[in-house]
C-alpha cells in the first residue's frame, strides 16, 4: 500500500515540476487561437498517444501555413497527463481555465475520457476524442471521431460469419471497460443471430498480460470442436505482442483460427515480426495501405514532418485529421471560437476522410465512417479484403443492449444525449 501512495506522491511532484517549466514558454506576441493537446507523453499510454500529439502539431502547422483561422494564427498548447487518469482531469482544467484553449484534442483510453468529462461540462469547452470506443455515451461537449461499436466490431463479426463461415467465437479482451462493453454488445449480437451460448468463449486478461500460453492453448482446444472458430480480440496495447508471438509459436495460422483485432494497427505491428501473423485480421476505418490521393499526400506529409521515411500512419491519426478539419470548418461557419457557437455549428459539418469519402458530423456527435477489414501482410501493412458500401453512421447507443436500444443522442433537435424514443423523454431508459 505504502509503495503505491509514495509512487503517486513522486509522480505528482515530478509532474508539478514539469508543468512549472512549461509555464515559462514564451508568450505569443499577437493574439492567437489556442488549441489544447491532451495526450500522454510518458507512462504506459505514451506508446500510442505520442504519435497523436505529433499529428496535431503537424495539422496546426499546416493550418497556419494556410493563413490560420479567422485571420489569427493557431497555437498548440501541449500538456502531458502521463497516463495518469486523475491527472487528465487536472490537465484538462489547466488547459481550459488557465490557457483558455478554444478546443481540446485528446484522450485515448475510455477511463481518461470519463475522467475529463466533468471538467469539460463544468467549464463548457470542446473535446475531440479520436479513438474507437465502446459507445453508450453522447455528451454535449465531446465529439467522437473514432469508431462506435457499430462502425468496427459488428461489421467485423459480420465479415467473419459471412466470408469465413465462422460458427464458434472466442471474445478475448483486456479487463477494462472498452472490451467488457464491446464483448457484451457482441455477445448479444451473436446470440440474436442464433449462435448458441456454448459456441461463445469469453476471456479477460489483466493489462500488460505477457504469459499467453494457457489462453492460446485454450483457444486451440475451443477451436477443435469441428466448427470454424475465430477470435475477436479487444486485447489492448502492449499485451498484443506476446499474444501474437504465442499464436505464432503454437502454430495457430490465420487459415485455421483467424484473429480479428480492434486495437492492432500499423503502429502496433511495427514492433513485431509479422510473418507468422499473415492473414490475421483487423477492423478499422482507415488503413495506411488504402490508395487514395488524399491518403498518399497525408502519408508523405507525415513522413516529412517526422523526418522518418518509414513512419507509419494509423486509424486514430485519421480521426484527428477529420476532427480537426471539422473543427476548423465549424469555427469558420460560426465566425467565432465561442464553445456554444462551435458546438451548435458542428453537427452537419462535412470533411473529407483519407479513404476517399466525405465524413459528416451527426447530431449525436459521432461521425459517419467507412469500415474496412484488412489482413496482415508480411511487411506489417494491411491488405483490405472487405469494406462497407458507403459510410456507416456511428450509433452513440448500441441497438444490441437492452438498456440502450431505445436511446438516441440528438443535440440538434432534442438537445440531449440520451433521448428515449419510446417514452419520448430525455434522461435514459
Amino acid at each position, binding site marked *: 500500500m505504502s509503495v503505491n501512495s509514495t509512487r503517486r506522491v513522486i509522480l505528482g511532484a515530478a509532474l508539478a515540476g514539469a508543468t512549472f517549466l512549461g509555464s515559462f514558454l514564451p508568450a505569443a506576441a499577437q493574439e492567437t487561437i489556442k488549441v489544447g493537446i491532451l495526450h500522454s507523453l510518458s507512462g504506459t499510454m*505514451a506508446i500510442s498517444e505520442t504519435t497523436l500529439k505529433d499529428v496535431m502539431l503537424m495539422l496546426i502547422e499546416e493550418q497556419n501555413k494556410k493563413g490560420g483561422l479567422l485571420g489569427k494564427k493557431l497555437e498548440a498548447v501541449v500538456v502531458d497527463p502521463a497516463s495518469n487518469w486523475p491527472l487528465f482531469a487536472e490537465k484538462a482544467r489547466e488547459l481550459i481555465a488557465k490557457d483558455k484553449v478554444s478546443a481540446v484534442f485528446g484522450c485515448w483510453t475510455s477511463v481518461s475520457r470519463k475522467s475529463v468529462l466533468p471538467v469539460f461540462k463544468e467549464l463548457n469547452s470542446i473535446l475531440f476524442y479520436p479513438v474507437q470506443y465502446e459507445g453508450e455515451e453522447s455528451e454535449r461537449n465531446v465529439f467522437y471521431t473514432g469508431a462506435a461499436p457499430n462502425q468496427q466490431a459488428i461489421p467485423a463479426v459480420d465479415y467473419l460469419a459471412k466470408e*469465413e463461415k465462422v460458427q464458434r467465437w472466442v471474445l478475448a479482451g483486456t479487463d477494462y471497460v472498452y472490451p467488457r462493453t464491446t464483448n457484451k454488445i457482441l455477445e448479444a449480437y451473436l446470440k440474436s443471430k442464433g449462435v448458441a451460448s456454448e459456441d461463445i468463449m469469453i*476471456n479477460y*486478461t489483466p493489462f500488460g498480460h505477457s504469459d499467453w500460453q494457457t489462453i492460446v492453448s485454450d483457444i486451440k*482446444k475451443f477451436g477443435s470442436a469441428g466448427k470454424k472458430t475465430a477470435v475477436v480480440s479487444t486485447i489492448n496495447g502492449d499485451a498484443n505482442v506476446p499474444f501474437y508471438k504465442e499464436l505464432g509459436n*503454437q502454430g495457430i495460422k490465420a487459415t485455421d483460427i483467424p484473429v480479428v483485432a480492434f486495437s492492432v494497427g500499423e503502429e502496433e505491428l511495427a514492433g513485431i515480426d509479422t510473418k507468422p501473423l499473415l*492473414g490475421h485480421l483487423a477492423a478499422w476505418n482507415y488503413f495506411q495501405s488504402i490508395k487514395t490521393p488524399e491518403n498518399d499526400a497525408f502519408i508523405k506529409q507525415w513522413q516529412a514532418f517526422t523526418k522518418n521515411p518509414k513512419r507509419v500512419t494509423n486509424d486514430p491519426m485519421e480521426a484527428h485529421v477529420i476532427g480537426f478539419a471539422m473543427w476548423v470548418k465549424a469555427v469558420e461557419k460560426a465566425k467565432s471560437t465561442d464553445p456554444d457557437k462551435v458546438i451548435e455549428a458542428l453537427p452537419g459539418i462535412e470533411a473529407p476522410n483519407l479513404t476517399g469519402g466525405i465524413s459528416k458530423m451527426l447530431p449525436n456527435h459521432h461521425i459517419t465512417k467507412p469500415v474496412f477489414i484488412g489482413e496482415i501482410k508480411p511487411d506489417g501493412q494491411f*491488405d483490405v*479484403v472487405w469494406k462497407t458500401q458507403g459510410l456507416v453512421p456511428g450509433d452513440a447507443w448500441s441497438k444490441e443492449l437492452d438498456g440502450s436500444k431505445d436511446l438516441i443522442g440528438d443535440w440538434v433537435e432534442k438537445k440531449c444525449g440520451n433521448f428515449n424514443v419510446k417514452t419520448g423523454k430525455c434522461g435514459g431508459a
Partner: protein
Amino acid sequence: MISIARLLRQLVVLTALLISPLAAFAQGADDAFTRLGADSYSDTARAVEMLVTSAHPQAAAIIEALGDGRLLAGGGAVIVKTRDGKLIDAKTGQPVATEPAGLSAVRLNNNVRRVVQAALGGLGLLNPDAGKRIAAAEAVFKSRDVTVLPVLEAAIAKESDAKAKAALRQAQAAILIVKTDAPPFDRLAAVDVLRERGDQEALATLRSLPGDASPALKDAQGRAIAAIEGNLALWRAGQNLWYGLSLGSVLLLAAIGLAITFGVMGVINMAHGEMVMLGAYTTFVVQELIRTSAPGLFDYSLMIAIPAAFLVAGAVGIAIERGVIRFLYGRPLETLLATWGISLILQQAVRTGFGPTNREVGAPNFMSGAFEIGGLAITWNRLWIIVFAGLVFAALLAILKLTPMGLQMRAVTQNRRMASAMGIRTGRIDALTFGLGSGVAGLAGVALSQIDNVSPNLGQSYIIDSFMVVVFGGVGNLWGTLVGAMTLGVANKFLEPYAGAVLGKIALLVFIILFIQKRPRGLFALKGRAVEA
C-alpha cells in the same frame, strides 16, 4: 468497360493459344490465367481449382508461387517469380527476359490461402520427397477435400514410407468422415484411425461427422471422442505443469537479480525492472548492429547480446550504487523513493532515446516454432528460456559459493564491520554486488525480449512479481528464490484454466499475503546470527 477489357484479354489469350504448343490441354488453364489477373479473391480461388483439374505442367509451381506471394499478374501476363528471383511465364514455362510493366503480386485472403493449401496437398501427394508427401497429407487432412480421394488412395497403394503412409491414411480417414456416401465399413475404420491419432485435430475432425450418420457410426464416434478426451486431459495436466515451469523460469530470471540486491544487500531497488528493460534494449541494439553490418551472425545475436546486456545493466547498476544508493544505506524508505525516481528517469530516457513505440527483437531460428512430445506442445523459445534460467541460477550460485568475491560478499552482508576489520573493502564489495544483481537483471532482459514487448514499460510489469517471488521464497536465499518462482509459476498456471487470468492472479496475491502473515520471513528463512543493519 471491364467486360470489354476482359473479352480483349481472352481474345489475346486465345490467339496465343492457337500458336502455342500447349493448346491441346490448356483449355481449362486458359480461363484460369484470365481469372488470376482479375484481382478478385473468388476468381483467384476458382483459378486454383481450375489449374488443378487442367493438369497444366506448371500447375504445382504456379500454385506454390501464389501461396508464397511470388505470382505476379497484370496486363494479361501471369508470371512466376522463382525463389532465386528469375521470372518465368506461367503459361508457357519459358523464362521471361524483362519484367513487363504493371505487374503486381496476386493478392490472397484466408479463403484463397486455404484453397491453395488444399490444392498443394492434392498435388503433393505423389511427390518423390517423403517429407513433402507428409506435409501434403496434413494439408488434405485439414481441407478434407473429397475430390482428392482417388489420388489419395493411389498414393496410399504405392506408399512405402511408414510415416508417410500413416499420414496419408489419416488424411483418407478425415475425408471419409465427411463423405456421407462412402461405404459404412470404411467410415467405421476411419474413426479408428482418427482415434489412434488422438490429438486436437483428430478430435476436431471426429466432431465434424455429419449429423445424419448411422447409429453405429455415431456410437463409434462418441467412444473415440471420449477416449481421446480422456487421454488429452492427462496431457493437459502435463501441459499445465510445463507452462508453470516456463512462467516460473521467467519469474526466476526477473527475480534472481533482485534476490541479490534486495535479498543479500537489503536494498529495496525499485529500478530493478528498468535494468531488465536496459538488457532488452541492449539486445535490440546488438541485433540492429548485426543486421546492418553482419547479417550472417543473426542466429548468434542473442549469444552476443548476453555479455553485452550483462555489462550495460551491470555498469548502470554500479553507477546507481556509487551515485545514489551508498549514501542511503540503512534508510530503506529513502532508498525506495530514490530508486523509484531513478526508474522513472531511466524509463523516460529510453523513451526519448528510442521512441515510445515497441522495438522489434527478432527470434533466431533455433528459438522459433514448437515441437510435440505426445500431446505436449513445447515451444522452443520457452524451452531455451528455462535452460537459460537454470544456467544463470547455477552460475550465480557458483559465484557466491566458490569465488573469493562471493566469499567477500557473504562476509559483508553477514557482518559488515567484522568484514571491514578483516581488510575487506566493503564499499567496493557493495558496488560489485549491486552491479552483479543488476547485470543478472540485464540477462533477464535478453530472455524477455523474446517473449514480451521491448518497450520502455517492460520492466514495470515485472517489478511487483519479482518482489513477490523474493519475499515468498525467503529474503537472502537463492534456493528460496528458485523454489518461490517455480511454485508461483506452477500455481498460477494450474489456477488459470479454472479461475481465469485475472482472478488467478488475485488468488495468488491473497495466498501470499496470508502466507507472509504465517511465515514473515518466507519459505526459506535465513537462520543463524545474521546481524541486522
